[in-house]
């Protein structure tokens, strides 16, 4: 199981300075995996808000990015653990498959979009559409999320320790949403549901994997699909 604990132990495999080299060179180097010794610890300096840093990884790397990143950082990640020391642009960890991505700062829109597995932790806030189109990824946000978060989310969990914006979980499928603070509004077909034992256990486990130990799992409310829009019905006309 993926955890957000990006180990600091072990020597660096290599260090990359994006002030001196290009993102292309970095990704090319990360894609060149030694089948005998896949992965390794990697430090990326001076990310400078550049786009598509550490995308398409397919090995158990531990990548530490010292600063802010642009769009799609760690996009389609498999197996690797990526820690961003600053803030993220749009679509961090979009469509990630496995592994863990941790953002120390805040994330822009569409964090974890269509993610299919692994764990995404955002220690700051996430903007609109956090967890949009989710397909199995678990997202834990220490702060708050913007409007239309978990829009059309199909599988996986979104845990929000702060507040959620308008239209939370609009057109939701089977993904589960947990919010500790206020919800500005629920989207079409999203309803509050009872928190039972298995849900409390799920939140506790996700918070533990995210390394968040000062938040009481008992304070979360659960939201999910009312499943009223699963099939076309005349009486749902107003919702289409």
């Amino acid at each position, binding site marked *: 199981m993926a955890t957000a604990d990006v180990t600091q132990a072990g020597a660096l495999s290599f260090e990359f300075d994006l002030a001196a080299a290009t*993102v*292309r060179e970095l*990704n*090319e180097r990360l*894609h060149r995996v030694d089948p005998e010794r896949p992965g390794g610890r990697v430090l990326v300096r001076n990310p400078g808000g550049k*786009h*598509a840093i550490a*995308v*398409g990884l*397919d090995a158990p790397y531990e990548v530490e990015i010292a600063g802010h990143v*642009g*769009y*799609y950082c760690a*996009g*389609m990640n*498999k197996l690797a653990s990526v820690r961003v020391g600053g803030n993220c642009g*749009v*679509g961090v960890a*979009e*469509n990630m*498959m496995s592994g863990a991505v941790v953002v120390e700062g805040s994330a822009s*829109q*569409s964090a974890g*979009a*269509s993610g*299919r597995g692994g764990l995404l932790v955002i220690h700051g806030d996430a903007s609109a*559409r956090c967890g*949009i*189109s989710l*397909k*199995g990824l678990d997202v834990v946000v220490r702060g708050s999320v913007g409007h239309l978060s978990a*829009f*059309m989310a*199909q*599988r996986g969990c979104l845990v929000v320790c702060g507040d959620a914006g308008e239209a939370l979980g609009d*057109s939701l*499928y*089977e993904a589960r949403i947990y919010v500790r603070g206020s919800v500005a509004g629920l989207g079409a077909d999203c309803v509050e549901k009872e928190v039972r034992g298995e849900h409390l256990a799920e939140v506790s486990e996700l918070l533990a994997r995210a390394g968040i130990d000062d938040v009481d799992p008992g304070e979360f409310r659960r939201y999910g699909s009312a499943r009223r*829009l*699963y*099939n*076309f019905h*005349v009486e749902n*006309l107003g919702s289409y």
Partner: protein
Amino acid sequence: MHGGVDRSARPPEMAAPGPTNGWNPGLRESATFDRNAIAEIQRAAREGMYDIRGFGAKRRVPHFDDLLFLGASVSRYPLEGYRERCDTDVVIGTRFAREPVHLDIPITIAGMSFGALSAQAKEALGRGATEVGTSTTTGDGGMTPEEREHSRILVYQLLPSRYGMNPDDLRRADAIEVVVGQGAKPGGGGMLLGHKISDRVAEMRDLPVGIDQRSACRHPDWTGPDDLEIKIEELREITDWRVPIYVKVGATRTYFDVALAVKAGADAIVLDGMQGGTAATQEVFIEHVGIPILAAIPQAVESLVDLGMHREVQLIVSGGIRSGADVAKALALGADAVSIGVAALIALGDNAPEHDPGYREIGSAAGYYDDYQAGLDPAGISTQDPALAARLDPVEGGRRLANYLRTLTLETQTLARACGKSHVHNLEPEDLVALTIEAAAMARVPLAGTSWIPGTITTP
């Protein structure tokens, strides 16, 4: 849709009461409230829901039929059939990709999903395309191992829904197609009704079995051309700049869409006219949104020429391609290749007379069948029912598709040679005239026998 199978109100036999069947000159059908309009009002009143169907636009629109080739004569000479070469190869992705796609013929298979189509149909498309050296395309539902195995050149679509999107498949693909829209429904998302969401389809799409799937119409992680540019950069980084990246748009504001896609870094533009097919869309969408491919190609070419990118960024057009004449006319207007969807399904056996009893059982008839959404296809193509799907032999289907693609290619070469061209890409607008004022204006070629091209060619 739920009532979609009941087509008793739309009989295939449309003959008016005639001399042999009790013709009464006092009966006059309304041009406005014709039988289709009346049947649709009655259906809507009964069901309270829009009609969802497959296929493409059925209304008559200006099309390639409205153009003619001039051929060679005294002022230019033709090429000999069989003895003088007329090449048909196309290279797509010359702008940025390290490994561009090389096609032997300028006809590709359009994106159609496993889910909309049976696994047998997808396999047959792969077999047929591979036999003649062209590409197939995945659809809104991910890549199946079968279609990868049977398609030598496979284009992987990145769609708003992102169903089944997987970096391993991305790396396995020979090209990537970012789908912004399709001709049947520019501005609309995918649809797959519950009876086609089988266990396997549900698993691939991360959906509950049996729901009526309504996909997103916008991508989840980008909006607008500036984001698209960064999205394309990310896809190139993931695939190490190896494969071409296409951008597919439905034909609407084509001049600008093409310019923005080129600016965003596309290797190729896939342009789908309003006649392009769909597996399931509201009829009102199919028939009333988007423009005919005839009107869109000249806009796309103008846009590419204005940017100095014609032939550098390749243009693949689709929407109503049926014959080699259609292919040749599309190429003459400036396209690099065409795509076929509905025509490929027909080649596999869709709407075939031998299935007529089966079509009649479900209220349709051979030649009229468009209920691809219903999953009851007696030809075994647009279905997830194992018994129905087993009716399509992928080897035999592939052979028929290969025959059809060869025929299209031979027809295209016949017309190109008649115009004196040693490569089908040497066909040009100057080889064409129009039969109607509308087609002349849209295609920007003169009305036959005149030098008149209605409308001034201005950039909107």
